[in-house]
């Protein structure tokens, strides 16, 4: 099989992986080395599903010896199998990078014989890239659950980001659908990565304190941190469960990100939702991301967002839901409120909040001046006063506001389009 055919199979097999960011690492160019990384990440293309393509996202091999029910590459599935060789994939990465197609490599894999064997091959590929080709760009590698700590450590010093997929939100679902993986096989490498990052940070802090060499020549251990991903909707866990899990994952393992992936049926199985009638919970995935964002950038605690029904409201984003529940704290006077309070206003983000604080130092705020700052009041207007004046023409009442926001968002063009697309999806 030639590289073209392998690439075709192994990129198709990797497409459901969500994370494709190249952010979090900032490495200046080094003389004599190919490549650099940029802290905000760079998208080099966008696929037909609208997702950013930043990295060469492939599996090393899809010849998997595990038999996870939800996975397109499960052992018992009838699909074409392929595996790269370390040098072949390293070459391909370099050639793509030279052409400005990509920022680097995102490498995952099926379990080729055993987790350790798979990781050894992955390490060899990345070693060739880093040491022989002096590749200085971004690399994100998956740690295969069950890999031994020594290999995780070696891999960690070669890559920018590492992730271990927890795949499913509970041990019960995991043993039902992925009998070869266990919660422990996932959390062990995760804690190992966390500890190694901590150790290195402590060492760096000590060195900085004692004013020794400020910069170490040695490559850092997983400088862009670790992340994980889980499948939503294939198993019965509700959003309350998932948000609680996310909170504890961020806390326990210091994760940079958690990715959610709305389940798309690929296999027929009595243990999974029926393939024909199942429609992928895209809106639910979207709401979970919004809740996740609120926890990471808006200082919300998971407990504040937990829905009474167990599931996040599909009509409203979690911030609006929270605001409507706490209407006693509103409307918020925008000319005096501190940053933490501004961040609680639906329709105002961290950027807008900081702009407001900067602008009101110099001049008095008005509806006009807010618009000039680029603050969109479409949603915020229901929740604020400007110099004591409530600017929405509607009554300050939870039900009226809820209805009004709903009709606002229904009337946007994008939303009408989305509704149409969702209807089309259910037809298949």
């Amino acid at each position, binding site marked *: 099989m030639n590289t073209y055919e392998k690439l075709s199979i192994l990129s198709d097999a990797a*497409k459901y992986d969500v994370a494709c960011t190249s952010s979090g690492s900032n490495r200046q160019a*080094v003389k004599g080395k190919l490549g*650099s990384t940029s802290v905000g990440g760079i998208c*080099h293309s*966008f696929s037909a599903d609208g997702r950013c*393509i930043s990295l060469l996202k492939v599996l090393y091999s899809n010849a998997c010896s595990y038999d996870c029910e939800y996975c397109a590459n499960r052992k018992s599935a009838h699909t074409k199998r392929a595996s790269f060789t370390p040098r072949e994939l390293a070459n391909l990465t370099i*050639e793509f990078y030279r052409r*400005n197609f990509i920022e680097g490599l995102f490498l995952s894999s099926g379990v080729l014989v055993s987790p350790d064997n798979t990781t050894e091959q992955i390490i060899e590929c990345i070693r060739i890239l880093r040491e022989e080709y*002096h590749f200085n760009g971004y690399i994100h590698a998956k740690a295969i659950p069950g890999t031994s700590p020594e290999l995780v450590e070696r891999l960690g010093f070669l890559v920018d980001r590492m992730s271990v997929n927890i795949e499913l939100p509970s041990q019960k679902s995991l043993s039902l659908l992925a009998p070869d993986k266990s919660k422990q096989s996932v959390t062990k490498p995760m804690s190992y990565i966390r500890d190694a990052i901590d150790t290195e940070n402590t060492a760096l802090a000590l060195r900085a304190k004692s004013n020794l060499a400020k910069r170490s020549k040695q490559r850092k251990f997983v400088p862009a941190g670790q992340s994980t991903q889980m499948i939503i909707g294939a198993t019965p866990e509700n959003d309350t469960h998932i948000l609680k899990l996310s909170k504890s994952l961020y806390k326990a393992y210091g994760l940079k990100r958690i990715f959610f992936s709305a389940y798309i049926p690929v296999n027929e199985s009595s243990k999974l939702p029926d393939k024909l009638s199942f429609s*992928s919970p895209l809106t639910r995935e979207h709401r979970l991301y919004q809740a996740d964002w609120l926890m990471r950038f808006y200082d919300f605690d998971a407990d504040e967002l937990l829905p009474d029904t167990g599931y996040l409201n599909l009509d409203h984003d979690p911030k609006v839901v929270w605001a409507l529940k706490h209407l006693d704290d509103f409307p918020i006077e925008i000319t005096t409120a501190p940053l933490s309070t501004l961040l609680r206003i639906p329709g105002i983000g961290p950027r807008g909040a900081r702009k407001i604080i900067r602008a009101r130092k110099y001049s008095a705020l008005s509806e006009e001046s807010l618009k000039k700052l680029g603050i969109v009041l479409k949603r915020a207007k229901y929740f604020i006063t400007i110099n004591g004046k409530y600017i929405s023409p509607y009554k300050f009442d939870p039900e009226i506001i809820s209805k009004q926001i709903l009709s606002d968002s229904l009337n946007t063009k994008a939303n009408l389009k989305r509704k149409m697309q969702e209807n089309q999806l259910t037809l298949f």
Partner: protein
Amino acid sequence: MDSSQHIQEALPFCYIFDSSFDGLLSCIAQIHLDKRLGSISRICAQDDYQPSLFEPAIKHETNQELVTRITEALKRKAGHKALQSCYKVFLSDEPRRFLLIFYFVSVALRVGKQVHSMLADKRIGEFLDLEKSVEAARHKAIEFLRFHKTSEGVYFAQFETSISFVPLVMNHFVGRLNVQAFVIYDSKHTVAGGYDGKDAIIQRVENFNPPRFSSDDTDYTHMWQEFYRQITIKERYKPKLRQQQMPKKYWQFLDEMQNGTAGSSIDR
């Protein structure tokens, strides 16, 4: 605040400079010396100057001493960033850019660093918006330009966007590609940036001859196209979203947006 209140003369002047950034700075310094701050109708680059009736034109010869003086003054008063902002706006295609730079420099020399937050001033606001759009266009070039290997082993990229982007992306690519010789060609502004692995130059290029590509280059293009097709989740097809992120005007430079090898459509 409005400098048009300063001096009024019967007819507004048009200043013509030699089309270089230094030339523009020198010219702006000359206008200050001539005390004609309030009577400028146009500042024109020599390359695209078209005379107009009833408009006295003054042809300015670039004076390196004036360039140094105004650059130093600007840096001292408003910081290095102000000079960079001017250069970025200089590279845009906005017809009024020279006049806006002139206005920005004049205000910056008077008020200093504060000029960067004077969004309320109409012309400064216009200048700052323009700077932002230049930054955005530069980013598009960094994202979307594509190199191909020529038969001489040099990597070549042709690209166009709304600004003369080459001077703004050379540092990025020199740092990144480092050991790899390359040429970036802006076919809209006929400007090319070249790097031989050691030194970089930027040049105007007339009569450009497209290079011949190496035979294995096509293989990688085909692989990239195949990767692009496979990575899409078909159940989530959203062509509108893609087009929003990757505007159609760039598709001609993107290998993955050309029809597939076997005549199949890009999305199969």
